[in-house]
């Protein structure tokens, strides 16, 4: 297993700070970081929460920041390399972390790690994502030029969510029986390709 962490001065300082943290509060901090790890551009703790943490853990602002950043770094690296708990445990101990802190981190990782990796896997770079699929089946009975018809019609509304914008873009389209069949064939071709991958 590749070495995930090299022992730099800042890491050594952070490990020292971690060792000083009250054992009661430590697991909560770790699990909170794990929860927010897969979200893009979101701070784990809001500014108010960070101030409160400074009080409860008895640390100054810069120290707290170093602590949180290093913890996030440890967990991000574990996710990147898909670290096994044993390897993680060993490497953290090598950095000089106290055994009970190591155990806390490894325990959280064992329970929530899989989920975090799964979420990270599904993070997409493309801003437009298909989110909704709605449809309606109609039977056209008449139009201005011709009455007494029986023309089936399907309307589809695809909701595309653009990252960073609140509202969804709705793509509306209509199909007759033949058009829908063609569309379906195209989807089947795509499906065959996906099946071929696995």
């Amino acid at each position, binding site marked *: 297993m590749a070495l995930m962490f090299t022992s730099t001065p800042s890491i050594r300082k952070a490990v020292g700070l971690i060792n000083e943290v009250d054992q009661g509060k430590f697991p909560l901090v770790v699990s909170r970081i794990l929860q927010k790890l897969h979200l893009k551009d979101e701070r784990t703790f809001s500014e108010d929460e960070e101030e409160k943490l400074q009080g409860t853990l008895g640390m100054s602002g810069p120290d707290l920041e170093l602590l949180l950043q290093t913890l996030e770094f440890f967990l991000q690296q574990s996710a990147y390399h898909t670290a096994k708990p044993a390897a993680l445990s060993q490497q953290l101990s090598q950095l000089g972390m106290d055994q009970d802190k190591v155990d806390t981190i490894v325990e959280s990782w064992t329970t929530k790690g899989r989920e975090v990796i799964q979420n990270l896997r599904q993070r997409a770079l493309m801003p437009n994502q*298909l989110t909704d699929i709605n449809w309606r*089946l109609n039977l056209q009975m008449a139009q201005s030029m*011709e009455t007494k018809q029986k023309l089936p019609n399907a309307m589809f509304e695809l909701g595309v969510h653009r990252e960073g914008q609140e509202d969804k873009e709705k*793509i509306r389209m209509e199909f007759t*029986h033949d*058009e*829908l069949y063609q569309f379906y064939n195209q989807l089947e071709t795509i499906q065959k390709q996906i099946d071929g991958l696995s």
Partner: protein
Amino acid sequence: MSIIQVTGSGKSAVSDRTPFYGARVPTEVKSMIKPLTKLEKGVFRKILLLIVTAIEGKNVEYKQIKDLETKDFQEETLCVIYSGLLKLLQCALKLPNGSLKQELFKEDLLELQIPEDFHTDISSVIFGNRRAGIDSECLKSRPRLPQVDQLKWRVDVGISTSVLNRVLEPSVLMEMTLTDGNIHTFEVPVSKFHELRYNVAYVLKEMEDLEKRNILKIKD
């Protein structure tokens, strides 16, 4: 109690069905009857041809009607005849192909006092081989939401990202061009793609069921 039988204007004995143009004779048709009786067959045929071209969706210029002007027939009269004939044909074309029977149609034309010479020509428009073209034009011109003109797609497998060394997660990228010109590009995660496929298949099945049920239930 006695049953009184009411006969029509002397020509048809059975007047209790609605003619193809509706309960009342349309005004355009009424006003064209008189000039129509004096019209020559050649000019009539040309006007009819213009009307059919117009119904099939192609452009008809006013100049073409003006050219048919002779000393007997002013522009205005020609216009009256044109609009009357157009209205007549539109009413007849409104009913789908199998619905209107040719004999009944001819009876109605007689009722309207349209000269019998013109009956064959008018009937050939409604029942002849140009009807298919007119029907397809009718379908094309109905109001519709945009349709999918072109679908370009691509299946990607992410191998590695900045946050994860081994991803191996497939995803589909679609670029849909609609008939109104808009191009929509979006990514579809595999789970959503399955949902899309399921929905399309479901609608397709529902449509087929509807068509099967339809033929039995709704009759003309």
